[in-house]
């Protein structure tokens, strides 16, 4: 299919409002872009290859005869297609990205440069270990930093992202309990936890029970202790928690869980608040994943790749996954994998991914860590907490801060929708923030606060930027409290108005179909 020569318009032109009333549907630098399949075709290519020498094939008689239907574009068209698409995205490079619990901080470009060095980017995971000593050194150096920063005993580097790290931690716990001849069935999870926590516990074969929160936004320690018993394998706690608060009773919680024969898993999504100031190992934690794509600045890339190494206590380290790097006395780096595991790591629970984990993220994270150093990382936590408290105290006269009275927050500030006028919701406020040129905060999470708005500015925002953000937030908050109905229409200045998510779910269209096929499918 080719573009309508009279000019391509998105959607149905007759339904368009006044603001898109141009011949093309474009609005100056806000450019519409068709789908690849509407502008490309199967005979166009953006690469040149040498002619393949002719000869009989040895494909087992399975030559592909049917068309695949893959549209191609020339190189200039390809670059333009994706560049035009890119301009419809918000990004940290454009402004504050205050998503609570996501730690959207600046992504240093040195990290990108380092990760692309051929010695890291162009090596195969199954090369003989003598030919990848530098890569193994990167993994080992990063492992040492993570162990020291957390005060833990060991670290499993291979988990691919946070949720995969959670799985790793729970499998360690389960292995340790089974080795003790005491398999247990239940994992306790606070109500305020990330959705991945209960999902991971279920994925690892556990039954999940919720632990309530107190009025002050902390884990209800009494309720937790009351539930502990011989069937509880462990608890999954987020600290600092998803209300943006440090759990002051963490040591007491850990001691109680250990006394009952269980283990403590910590969701490390919020490690940015305490790096260099608190070591989770000193809080009695047995396992914690570290999102390198949060605290250690590897880019989030629109939804990954992440990387979720898991630091482990002395009790759990023997059960960690394969493979891992071992530094030998002669300075040589060896790999412990299936072959030598019976001798060197007999209790490990096995492999949880092909190869060695997210090497490309390890180089970036190590580059970030070496840049900051121990002193800089401590400053990261302090500035992150300072920025969040600055937002909290600059807003609490206008927005309800449910836990504002109980003291300072950590790296994120939590507000509720209390006091909004009429039927104005958190969603409306968030969409209005888009019109102000900011990405909204995390909404409706944690679940324990009504209409929650969780704001995590991170340490890489300047005071001037925060002041502008606070000004915009105050402006939309005032409109929300006044019940300003125009918020219902927001955003009006973004590449798209509000999208119909109900329609998308009711009649899922998940792949492109050429118009004639789509009609046939109706």
């Amino acid at each position: 299919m080719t573009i309508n020569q009279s000019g391509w318009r998105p959607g149905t032109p007759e339904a368009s409002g006044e603001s898109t009333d141009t011949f093309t549907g474009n609005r100056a630098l806000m450019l519409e872009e068709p789908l690849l399949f509407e502008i490309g075709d199967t005979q166009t290519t953006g690469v040149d290859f040498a002619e393949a020498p002719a000869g009989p094939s040895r494909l087992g008689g399975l030559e592909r005869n049917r068309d695949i239907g893959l549209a191609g574009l020339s190189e200039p068209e390809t670059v333009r297609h994706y560049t035009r698409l890119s301009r419809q995205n918000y990004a940290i490079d454009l402004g504050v990205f205050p998503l609570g619990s996501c730690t959207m901080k600046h992504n240093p470009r040195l990290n990108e440069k380092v990760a692309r060095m051929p010695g890291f980017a162009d090596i195969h995971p199954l090369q003989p270990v003598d030919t990848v000593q530098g890569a193994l050194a990167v993994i080992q150096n990063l492992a040492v930093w993570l162990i020291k920063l957390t005060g833990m005993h060991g670290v499993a580097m291979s988990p691919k992202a946070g949720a995969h790290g959670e799985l790793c931690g729970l499998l360690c716990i389960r292995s340790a309990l089974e080795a003790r001849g005491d398999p247990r069935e239940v994992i306790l999870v606070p109500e305020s936890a990330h959705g991945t926590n209960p999902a991971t516990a279920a994925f690892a074969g556990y039954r999940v029970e919720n632990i309530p929160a107190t009025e002050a936004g902390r884990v209800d320690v009494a309720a937790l202790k009351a539930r502990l018993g011989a069937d509880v394998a462990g608890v999954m706690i987020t600290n600092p928690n998803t209300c943006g608060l440090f759990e002051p009773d963490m040591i007491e919680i850990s001691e109680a869980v250990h006394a009952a024969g269980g283990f403590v898993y910590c969701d490390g999504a919020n490690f940015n608040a305490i790096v260099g100031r608190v070591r989770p190992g000193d809080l009695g934690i047995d396992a914690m994943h570290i999102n390198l794509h949060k605290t250690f600045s590897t880019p989030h890339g629109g939804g990954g790749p992440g990387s979720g190494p898991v630091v482990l206590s002395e009790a759990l380290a023997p059960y960690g996954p394969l493979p891992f790097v071992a530094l030998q006395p002669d300075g040589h780096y060896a790999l412990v994998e299936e072959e030598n595991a019976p001798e060197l790591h007999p209790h490990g629970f096995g492999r949880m991914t092909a190869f060695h984990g997210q090497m490309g993220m390890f180089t970036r994270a190590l580059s970030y860590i070496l840049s900051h150093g121990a002193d800089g990382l401590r400053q990261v936590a302090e500035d992150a907490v300072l920025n969040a408290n600055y937002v909290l105290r600059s807003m609490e006269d206008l927005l309800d801060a449910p836990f504002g009275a109980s003291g300072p927050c950590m790296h994120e500030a939590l507000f509720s929708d209390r006091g909004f006028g009429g039927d104005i919701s958190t969603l409306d406020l968030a969409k209005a923030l888009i019109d102000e040129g900011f990405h909204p905060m995390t909404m409706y999470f944690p679940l324990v606060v009504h209409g929650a708005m969780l704001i995590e500015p991170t340490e890489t925002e300047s005071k001037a930027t925060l002041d502008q953000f606070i000004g915009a937030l105050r402006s939309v908050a005032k409109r929300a409290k006044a019940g300003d109905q125009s918020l219902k229409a927001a955003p009006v200045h973004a590449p798209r108005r509000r999208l119909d998510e109900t329609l998308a779910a009711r009649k899922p269209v998940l792949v492109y179909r050429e118009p004639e096929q789509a009609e046939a499918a109706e």
Partner: protein
Amino acid sequence: MRYLPLSDADRSEMLRVIGANSVDDLFVDVPEAAKLTGKIEDLPDHASELSVERQLGALARRNIAAGEVPFFLGCGAYRHHIPASVDHIIQRGEFLTSYTPYQPEIAQGTLQALFEFQTQVARLYGCDVANSSMYDGSTACWEAIAMAGRVTRRNKALLSSGLHPHYVSLAKTMAKFTGDDLVHQAPTLEAGTDIDALQIDGETSCVVVQYPDILGRIADLSGLAARCQAAGALLVVVNTEPVALGAIKAPGEMGADIVVGEGQSIGVGLQFGGPYCGLFATRDKYVRQLPGRLVGETVDAEGKRGFVLTLSTREQHIRREKATSNICTSSVLCALAWTAHMTLLGEKGLRQLAALNHAKAVAAADRLAKVPGVELINDSFFNEFTLRLSKPSRQIVRDLADRRILAGVSLGRLYPDDGDIEHGLVVAVTETTTEEDVETLASALQEVLA
């Protein structure tokens, strides 16, 4: 510190607004016993950009990069030429530094690219629908086994011997905890696969077959698909080399119910094993059992076409412990690289690339099979084949590495305790391999085998 914009004056002013005397006041909830006051021992302080680049550059130079030497490794990760524009596209800050597209009005770039990606993956695999990526091929493979269990309500999976041993290893790890029953045997150095011998019964949830398999062999899966269907089991096909699908039949075309794979070959470099890009596709009727994120088409308030994350009631942030998977962050930037590279290729380019890979592999296999002490195992292959060497291949690979030749993957490393298979060497040949590379390998092999 160059990444921290606050000045000391800013900090003082902000503390005044907060009403705190010092930043320590903000950490009051941390118990005294857990407060770190001094420095953590043995950790250095901050360093300049120049210094960090030098330190890491020195480590990078301790590795032999594939591009420096004759290079023949495959087995789940392949070296292909990636057009320069792909890396330019994924380094656009609007893609690189954006988050998961939860606010679709300001994330149409990522969402539309993922919708295009889903379409390309579904078409390449010959399936109805695909998701927007998994961590990698190995984790996608386990998720497919888990999904087949949900669909069939059975829990016995038959893994063919040609499935990548790391994928098998991962599945065994998970099955220990989920209680699934896995049936698997290591492969033997033969031209034929074991797929006709797989015993499918009324308990079988799925049969998992790699195509082409770990030894590079290609088997027609149509008969197996029919046997699965008759027994009410699902056929899960794993592909670790998507370029192959430019030359051979799509798994969906042969009746696969779920097709998963490693996307790394297209757009994503070797990177020592990660990050990669897991691909996951299936039939329309199983869409609500899919793990991971899905992008769907819809309209905005003005009736303009747009894209959103959809069917999220399958996912952990809504369903919590009842979710289809615990996956959250997946591999979107790698998916973007994949889709940009696939767009540059187009159908024409992909077919040319596949033809070139196959022709070079055929020539290399014939040349290497002439070396005394070397026997070609495969009747069929795409760009990767297995040689039986007269000596255990593991030491041969090490000896050749000493001569700066990365000769392939020794099956002795992948199957350490399996006797005869230690003579197997899996050799991959792509468009990046030159005739000189093959000659160099052939003559060096002759010497070390002599």
